[in-house]
C-alpha cells in the first residue's frame, strides 16, 4: 500500500473512475478556489425524461471538487478522506443544464481541511450549498 505515487492534478481526473464517468471537468482554478463542471447528460436524470439531474450526481460533483481543491493545496500528493459532508438543497436545478460547483478551501490545519462550496446551473443563483471536512495525510507516512 505504501510504494505508489499519486498523480499530479491535471492527470488526477483520469484516475477517478466515477468522476470520469460523470464527465467532470476543472474549468477554473486559482489558489484556494476551484470550479468544476458536470456536463448535462440524460444518464444523470433522476427520473427518465424530466431533465432533472439526480442529487446523487450533484453530491459526486461536490465531493470530487472538494477533494481536488484540497489536493491542489499540497506540494506533494496527499491521501484524502471525507470525514463529513453536508448539502443543503435550496431549490431545483434547471432541467437539461450543465451544473457547476464553485468550491473554496477555507482552512487547512495539520490534520484536517475545511471546504465549502456553491452549486448552480448556468450562471444562476446557487440551488445548493455544501460544506465538508476532510482528513489529509501525506502518502507514505
Amino acid at each position, binding site marked *: 500500500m505504501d510504494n505508489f505515487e499519486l498523480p499530479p492534478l491535471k492527470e488526477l481526473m483520469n484516475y477517478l*473512475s*466515477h468522476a470520469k464517468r460523470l464527465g467532470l471537468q476543472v474549468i477554473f482554478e486559482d489558489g484556494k478556489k476551484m470550479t468544476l463542471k458536470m456536463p448535462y447528460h440524460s444518464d*444523470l436524470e433522476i*427520473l427518465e425524461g424530466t431533465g432533472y439531474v*439526480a442529487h*446523487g*450526481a450533484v*453530491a*459526486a460533483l461536490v465531493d470530487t471538487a472538494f477533494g481536488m481543491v484540497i489536493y491542489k493545496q499540497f506540494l506533494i500528493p496527499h491521501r484524502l478522506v471525507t470525514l463529513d459532508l453536508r448539502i443543503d438543497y435550496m431549490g431545483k436545478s434547471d432541467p437539461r443544464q450543465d451544473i457547476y460547483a464553485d468550491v473554496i478551501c477555507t482552512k487547512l490545519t495539520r490534520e484536517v481541511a475545511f471546504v465549502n462550496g456553491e452549486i448552480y446551473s448556468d450562471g444562476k443563483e446557487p440551488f445548493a450549498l455544501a460544506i465538508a471536512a476532510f482528513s489529509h495525510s501525506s502518502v507514505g507516512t
Partner: protein
Amino acid sequence: MISGQLKALKDEEVFEVPVLGSPYSKMLGLHLKRDEKGKITTIMKYSDDLIGVPFPPALHGGPLIALLEMASFFELAWELNIEFIPKTIDVNVDFLRMGKPQDCFASAKIFRRGRRFANLHAKIWQEDFDKPIATARLHFLIIDPTKKRVQKD
C-alpha cells in the same frame, strides 16, 4: 415513475428488483429488496465506475451519498404510501470507513414524521451490518405539491 414501481410491489411479500425509470439509479446499479421481515434495503451493485480513489481502490463518496438519499426516499415512499417525490432539504453524511470495491447495502429509518417535514437516519454497510461505512441524517419536505395549501408567512 419510481413511485409507480413501488405501488406495484406493495402486494409482494419478498422481492429484489432493479430500480426502474431512473437513469442515475441505473448507473449506480441500484436494486430494491424486501426481506421476510418486511425490511426494505437498497442495494448498490458494485461496478468499476463507482471507484473514487484508485490506490487502494475505494468507493467514491458521491455514489454513497446518493445511496443514502435514495434509501431514505424509498423508506419514506414505502412507509407513507406517497405518490409524489418528496423534496430533499438537507443531507448530512458522516463517512466512517473506507468503501471496499463490493456491493453496498443501505437502509433508512424515519425518526420523526411531522405534517411538513420528515427526519430520517440512513446507513450503509457492506459485510457487517454493525460496521457501517457511512451514516446520514436527512430532512425531507413531505408536502404534496399537487395539493393546494394556504401560504403562511
